[in-house]
């Protein structure tokens, strides 16, 4: 299996397009074709993350659309010196998802009604399957190297969309402990994954 087909986003990007950073530079100059290619690269990560946090497929689609349009709108402001493109985009995606969680906690009923009425739900089962690949394996491996409290603190916040107070409540731990476990958990994850902030 070639490395390319092992990725969960196997649509092949025009090899002449160059790196995501090159694509982004073209997007910043208003190139819609480059944006379409960037979409193919990034939308699965954006949608996957938002979906993981929000669960609701209709809402996840809506927020994914917002984020991808925001990527287009603010492409000129991306600064490669300050972090990877994926991280920039996923940071936006995560924030939007969390904003949605916090602002709509009270209107869950309405959202459920919207979801039930949406035809998107049919697509649901198909979309659920995430292709395994090296990166996913690596993340899984590194997560398993965290202590249980670190892992739960990090994943309840990141995937669960909970605030640290809510996480502390769920794990029956002190606020200061949870804050610290989130930090040292991420530090261990960083060291295991060998990522840098640029």
């Amino acid at each position, binding site marked *: 299996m070639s490395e390319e087909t092992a990725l969960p986003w196997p649509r092949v990007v025009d090899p002449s397009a160059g790196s995501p950073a090159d694509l982004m530079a073209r997007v910043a100059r208003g190139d819609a074709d480059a944006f379409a290619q960037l979409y193919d690269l990034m939308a699965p990560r954006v949608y996957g993350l938002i979906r993981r946090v929000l669960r609701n497929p209709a809402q996840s689609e809506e927020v994914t659309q917002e984020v991808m349009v925001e990527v287009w709108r*603010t492409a000129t402001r991306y600064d490669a010196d300050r972090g990877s493109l994926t991280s920039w985009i996923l940071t936006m995606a995560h924030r939007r998802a969390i904003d949605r969680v916090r602002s709509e906690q009270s209107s869950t009923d309405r959202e459920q009604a919207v979801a039930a009425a949406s035809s998107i739900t049919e697509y649901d089962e198909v979309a659920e399957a*995430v292709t395994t690949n090296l990166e996913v394996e690596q993340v899984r491996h590194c997560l398993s190297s965290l202590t249980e409290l670190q892992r739960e603190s990090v994943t309840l916040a990141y995937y669960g969309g909970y*605030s640290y107070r809510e996480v502390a409540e769920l794990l029956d731990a002190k606020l200061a402990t949870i*804050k610290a476990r989130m930090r040292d958990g*991420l530090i261990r994850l960083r060291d295991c994954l060998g990522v840098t*902030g*640029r």
Partner: protein
Amino acid sequence: MTTPEVHALTGPYVLNALPEDERTGFEAHLADCQSCSAEVAELREAANKLGTAVATDPPPPLKARVLAEIATTRQLPPLVKPDAPTTEPGLAPAPVRRRFNRRSFFSLAAAGLAVAGAGGIAIDQYRENSSTRQENEQLAALLAEPDAQTARGNLKTGGQATIVMSPAKDRAIVLLHNLPKLPADKTYQLWLMDKSRDLHSVGLATTDESKLIQGGIIGKIALGVTVENKPGASEPTLTTATVIPMA
């Protein structure tokens, strides 16, 4: 808050697990703490690997909708690097920098007001992207109005409030800075006072934020800030009120 305590917030911050008020406070700290910014950048890369790990193909029709929307969406202009800040006589940079929070400081530069020492201000480019970006632009546009006026004052309850208003545009932006954190059942509430000294509510506010007020600016003579029980009051609690005259 002690330094190690603030530093421990990098984790919850990167995970977006801080409540709004603590997030704002931490971002203010980030602007002055280089080691924190570096750590945030690294931890953010690590956290976002968790995002990549759950990649899922979106429903195919979404792409067409996104492409259709970008076709009608104007892109923001690039930020022009502030490598040649010029100082205009008569505009003292230091007080401007102190009185305005980090976000609005940035907007002043964007509005063409020259400010010295623009380097060294860390702006969280992620926040810049969405709501803050929009706020900055709104503020810059308002400051550029020929009839723009600003007024500011210290609140009785602590912190500062600044109002930038343009009666011609019937718009105002209120910037709040360093307001003390309130108990969970309390909120700040903003009011505009008319000539007969009646206060009209223009919304609730948290500790550190900017609020756009559209409409109802004409004929108003002062900004009022009070502390009220949630979810806000129809009549101001005058014992907590600070009134900042606009003229």
